[in-house]
């Protein structure tokens, strides 16, 4: 008796699905092949010829493997992307911006970073909301936890938690070359120094604070995984 299952296991060796799902696909396809071969044998076809005809149903196993994988995972990718990236990103963005608004309205006065010239402040100026910056690691950790819990990769996790600073980063990335080109033609020259201070205050510092929270979750989850491996081994 031919072992169809082992044969399918070998042919579909590249099938990257969850082990249980993979086993189900293999069992199902093996049963189909077995039944096809049995039917051919019942019709009086010799075993070797029946096996050859049965296997001729699949011209390219590699291609079948890809098509099964795509059919099984395409919809999952969409929902996973939402759970692992978009949901934590939007939550992080909402909390970061909401908290900033609340602190601006009700919180203490911001810390103004500027060069003083007598009684006046001279650019470069940065407005730093310290309570906001201090709360960002918690928000970052929440975003990272959500992404990690949904099975997100490191890239998905870290991208989702720096999501709130991305619009600012895009602004500065666009503003720098534009300034470099038009600076001499403007009546009031824009100061590069101000832009770099702004980049630090609105992109680098909040980004680092958010990442610090995410990093804690990453370290914590890696340690938990290691301890589980240790228990299982």
């Amino acid at each position, binding site marked *: 008796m031919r072992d169809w299952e082992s044969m399918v296991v070998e042919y579909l060796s590249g099938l990257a699905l969850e082990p249980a799902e993979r086993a189900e696909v293999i069992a199902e396809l093996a*049963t189909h092949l077995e039944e096809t071969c049995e039917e051919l044998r019942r019709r009086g076809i010799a075993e070797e010829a029946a096996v050859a005809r049965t296997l001729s149903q699949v011209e390219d196993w590699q291609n079948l493997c890809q098509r099964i994988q795509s059919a099984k995972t395409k*919809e999952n990718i969409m929902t996973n992307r939402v759970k692992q990236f978009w949901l934590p990103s939007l939550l992080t963005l909402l909390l970061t911006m909401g908290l900033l608004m609340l602190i601006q309205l009700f919180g203490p006065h911001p810390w103004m970073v500027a060069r003083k010239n007598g009684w006046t402040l001279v650019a470069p100026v940065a407005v730093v909301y310290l309570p906001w910056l201090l709360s960002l690691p918690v928000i970052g950790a929440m975003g990272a936890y959500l992404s990690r819990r949904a099975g997100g990769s490191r890239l998905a996790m870290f991208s989702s938690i720096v999501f709130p600073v991305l619009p600012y980063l895009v602004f500065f990335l666009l503003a720098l070359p534009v300034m470099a080109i038009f600076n001499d033609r403007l009546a009031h020259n824009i100061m590069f120094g101000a832009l770099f201070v702004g980049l630090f205050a609105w992109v680098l510092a909040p980004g680092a604070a958010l990442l610090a929270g995410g990093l804690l979750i990453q370290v914590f989850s890696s340690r938990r995984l290691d301890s589980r491996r240790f228990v299982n081994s």
Partner: protein
Amino acid sequence: MIGPGIKRGTAELAVLSVLEDGPLHGYELARRIEQQTKGALRFTLAALYPMLYRMEQRGWIRGAWEISESGRRKRCYRLTPAGKKKLSPLRKEWAELFGALRRLTRVLHA
């Protein structure tokens, strides 16, 4: 208007129509389609299963393992309410295609 997905739609229509009569496992499903279309439509393993898995992902059919009379474990597919709902627009598209082809061939033979 006949949609661009008509080719795939016809294969899906065949599966949904056959499953409307009752649950079947993959091999039996392919055989039933072949018998009912007198061999005009044949599904090989390579064509059938990616399509079944895709339809299952969309929620039109649901597969579950069952033990057959011969004692063999088989995955039986049945139509879901979403699949039943999908059948009628697919049938309409299919009828539209045939109607258009019929009109076209009449013109050509006139």
